[in-house]
């Protein structure tokens, strides 16, 4: 009961924050609010027993996404100057959308209903078979890395694509026809070095964040966590360091060539596991054939692919951050 009440509170907060984001014209405020939005969302996920997702949403949604938005803001504009005209069509479209969903979900199973169909089919199989087939305590990891490992492979390539996209867009020297005057961004400070407290606290936090990231990486089989969360956490650590010490120092810590090699290497590792299992006589991504004992094979496969995922995600987030941060000072 308590959780439900808490959940209601969080959900209501979500709506309030969303409205606030919509109404503000200051983009900086909007970005900060959207960070808060993600944080509330993460808390709500935690209440709903989705620890892995909560962790991911907190790191990626509230952390990295906010930083990227801020980086983009520094390179674009601070105010939303949309003219207030022509809002009828969007209003009608979105109301219709909302109306349809509310109409439809009256028939949906209520929250937490154990007799809901989603809890009867497929999911029980995962819960039942994981100890026997994969033997890791965290069923989410088992499903993510093995049962639906192909999805996760795809997902790694989605972030990989985003990374090469950002690099293709922001990586190269700016073309001549750009209309921005040289030095327009130089006045924006690149670091927090003259702010003592944030600097000290930030610097102190960085090692812990990275350490926590590594813990999440290798503990993902047992508790919430895994490659995504770990990669994002490590990246967050590096990003925090760059924010505190400046982009130049940040790029000295993790050079760009290293982060982009990490990206490709992670994706390559994942695919290689798939190819290796094919070569060893199994289906693509069938880790059971990787060792003599199928369960051992699963462990090995999950370990390697989670490492690949972690590398790619960390590499991507760092590379993207660098691409944004460097763009301003060139």
């Amino acid at each position, binding site marked *: 009961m308590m959780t439900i009440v808490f959940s209601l509170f969080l959900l209501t907060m979500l709506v309030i924050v969303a409205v606030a984001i919509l109404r503000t014209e200051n983009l900086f405020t909007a970005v900060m609010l959207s960070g808060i939005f993600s944080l509330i969302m993460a808390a709500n996920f935690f209440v709903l027993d989705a620890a892995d997702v909560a962790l991911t949403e907190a790191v990626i949604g509230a952390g990295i996404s906010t930083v990227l938005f801020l980086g983009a803001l520094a390179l674009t504009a601070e105010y939303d100057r949309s003219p207030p005209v022509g809002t009828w069509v969007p209003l009608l479209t979105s109301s219709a959308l909302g109306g349809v*969903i509310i109409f439809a979900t009256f028939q949906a199973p209520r929250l937490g209903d154990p007799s809901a169909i989603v809890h009867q089919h*497929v999911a029980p199989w995962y819960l039942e078979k994981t100890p026997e087939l994969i033997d890791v305590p965290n069923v989410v990891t088992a499903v993510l890395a093995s049962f639906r490992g192909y999805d996760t492979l795809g997902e790694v390539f989605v972030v990989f694509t985003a990374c*090469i996209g950002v*690099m293709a867009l922001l990586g190269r020297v700016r073309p001549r026809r750009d209309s921005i005057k040289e030095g327009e961004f130089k006045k924006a400070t690149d670091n927090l070095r003259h702010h003592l407290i944030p600097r000290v606290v930030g610097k102190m936090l960085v090692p812990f964040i990275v350490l926590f990231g590594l813990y999440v990486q290798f503990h993902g089989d047992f508790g919430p966590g895994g490659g995504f969360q770990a990669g994002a956490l490590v990246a967050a650590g590096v990003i925090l360091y760059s924010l505190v010490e400046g982009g130049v120092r940040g790029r000295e810590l993790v050079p760009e060539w290293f982060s982009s090699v990490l990206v490709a290497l992670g994706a390559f590792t994942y695919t290689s596991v798939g190819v290796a299992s094919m070569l060893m006589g199994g289906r693509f991504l069938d880790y059971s054939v990787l060792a003599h004992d199928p369960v051992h094979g699963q462990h090995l496969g999950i370990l390697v692919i989670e490492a690949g995922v972690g590398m790619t995600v960390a590499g991507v987030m760092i590379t993207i951050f660098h691409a944004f941060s460097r763009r301003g000072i060139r």
Partner: protein
Amino acid sequence: MTLYDQLPALVVAVLLFTAPIAYMLRMHGFPWAAATAAVVTSFIVACSLAATAIGGETIIYEMGGWPAPYGIVLHIDALSALMAMLITGASSAALIFGAKSLADEVGEETAPAFFAAWLLCTAGLVGMVITGDAFNIFVFMEISSLSTYVLISAGPDRRALISTYRYIVMGTVGATFYLIGVGFLYMVTGTLNTADLGARVGQVEDIRLVLVAAGFVSVGLAVKAAVFPLHSWMPNAYTFAPNAVTVFIAAASTKVSLYVLIRVDYAIFQNSIANHEVQLTLFLVPLGVMALFAGSLLAIYEKNLKRLLAYSSVSQIGYIALGIAMTSVAGLTGAIVHMFNHGLIKGGMFMAVACLALRYRTVNVANLAGAGKAMPWTMAAFVMGGLGLIGVPLTPGFISKWYLVLAALEKGWLGALLVAVILISSLLAVIYVWKVIEVAYFREPRANAVPVTEEAPMVMLIPTWIVVLTGIWFALDTSVSVGLASIAAKTLLGVAL
């Protein structure tokens, strides 16, 4: 496990495996070579899959060795094989064709990223057509979408950027709609496997959520497929993308969304919702008819050749939508075969346009005066494509039109109306194709224009003509295209082969 058993996974794995390599090894020319080698390999694999599928066989490949519905399975039947062949074929042709023009437009520094994105785009599209899992479709849809954004934004004009942005917005909304639809389906069935979904949706007592799911999925895919009036992202995206990219995405990418629409609708909703064929008809026929007219009319008044062809694609997608909406073997055969044929036709035409753009440095129709004389082979390829759009015999367009009209005739008086619509729109195609032909062949170049005397280079002309001749081949010998399409249509409708 023999190599033969592994083919279904290979068709995607080859591409995914090569993409990071192409990105990492930054030697001159290597990314292009690696991408081409991988895509061609994938094409060969797709062809061998098609050879199996033409026997009416469905291949199920369990990813990770986990059986459906717990794991993700690849599900390859005639339809997937045909689409996989189209995608990888178009990708290979466009890459080989674009060896020179891409080096021109993309630049050495971005080349690794660009070709990796190309590989991922191909992988994403192929992944969508061979998978048997509704959520997996979403994942690969995102791979293909994100990489398509990258490819389009590589266009030389700054308007490429704003086109990319609009495409990102529309594409993401479309994909999210699809995701919402899949979520509702999961809510009522507890499964994500398409075959399992098809079996279990029928048992759902209250149909409301299923209907709304069908709505979300269809609208989302219609956005991604640029079905009129949700096409607004497409003309500019085609226009400002690098020329070889336009060749590829025009030939393959919107078709894949239509494929998913067919797949999801026929495998999941058609069997389980009463009167669903009426709903589908009510949804798609008006859109298709509007697309036919609006696309053709916009094309008639368009001055930019690439955008003209993009509008023509809008109208051609209308044909496919009509075919899907007819829910008959002939109609579906027509729709599927037209997806394939239109890919061939448009691919060839955009190749010809790329040749023209290389020499004329513009794709405004008015500036192409004299092209018929200066670049006879290029223009001949363009004319062949144009005749295909009209649906003249000896071009693949005729085959598709044949089946669509045949299907419409089965529908009685309403069908006669549809026949009229289909044919009137073909005649509108005559107008916009001829507009270009008259300028290119019979108008004297302006006095102040830089004279073009050189034909496009052989490295571009030969692939163009290979595509054109392949088109003619598929107009004469339809045993592969129509063969696969009719098996696909019968399988989807549950008719005995």
